[in-house]
């Protein structure tokens, strides 16, 4: 192959490579964003509040009813984050 042709051919190959890599990168990014759809899920459903004695929810110190009414997340027995400071 004449030497004069080598450089243009190499340049064309590099450009084609860059072009296709870019295409794949864009395709990958689009696929990544598609894969993300539906992956951002809400936190867990809170667990059930505990049982109540025969005195009923208005009985002395009914813990589940207090938990249901409380403004504090700790008293409400909501899910905890890992390693919460």
């Amino acid at each position: 192959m004449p030497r004069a042709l080598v450089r243009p051919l190499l340049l064309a190959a590099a450009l084609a490579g860059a072009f296709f890599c870019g295409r794949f990168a864009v395709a990958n990014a689009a696929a990544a964003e598609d894969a993300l759809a539906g992956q951002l899920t809400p936190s867990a459903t809170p667990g059930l509040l505990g049982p109540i004695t025969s005195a009923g929810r208005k009985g002395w110190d009914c813990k589940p009813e207090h938990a249901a009414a409380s403004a504090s997340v700790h008293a409400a027995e909501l899910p905890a984050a890992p390693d919460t400071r």
Partner: protein
Amino acid sequence: MRISVLATLIALLTTTAALSQTYPGAMPVPRTTSAPALADLAKQREVEERFRIGLAALSAANYKGAAAEFARVVAINPAEPKGSTARYDLAIAYANLQREDDAAAQLRAAIELDPGFLAAMANLVAVDLARGDFTEARSVADRFLALAPDSARALYARGIVALGTGDAATAREDFGKLLHSNPAYAVAHYDLAIAEERLGHMDAAERELRTALSLAPTYARAEFALGAVLLRQGRRSEARDAFVRTMQDASGDPALLNIAAAMRDSIAI
């Protein structure tokens, strides 16, 4: 000398009083010979006993035994508050036996007997989410919140239901209100971020996720969500770093670990 004798005597009397047993007063004996009144007293006694046995069974995780006791109490149909309470406790037993439809039916009946029964509403929302009945979950959560507007559980429950049904605006409002009284609750910052992301507010979503991570540095789901938000903003290098950090923190969650690894590998820097 006299003083020391007196002190010893007082000490002895105090010790004797402390060691002496106290006995409960005698149970009142039914003062009736009327057959219906005696039958009613026997039913009351049975209800009390079955509650006691049922609660012991629940605490021992014997859900089948507990269900049998509370089902019998429900069949006796005692007056309030025992009627709604027996149904509430029966629902807990059913939910643990994976009989979610039966649990929901008992909780509905409990709320019908006692329309202000917040704990029953809280549990019905949880059971409905497990059953996939988002329509009833939303309706009960709305009622729960109307009765207890400051309740952390009501706000959280409706926020989760709203996110599950595509109502990001309500979720944003509920988690925002929950954070107003509980600003250090990382989970609510995460859920608020999900709502903001769905509303297209990427800056707000990023801010909430960074707050969640400052409160709970190994919160892998928050780190993953941050990666997703950064990716949507075109900040690929930062997104990739977030997915790498997710992989470090998600050792207990193989599904999250896999998706984070796939995301990291898909991002060409």
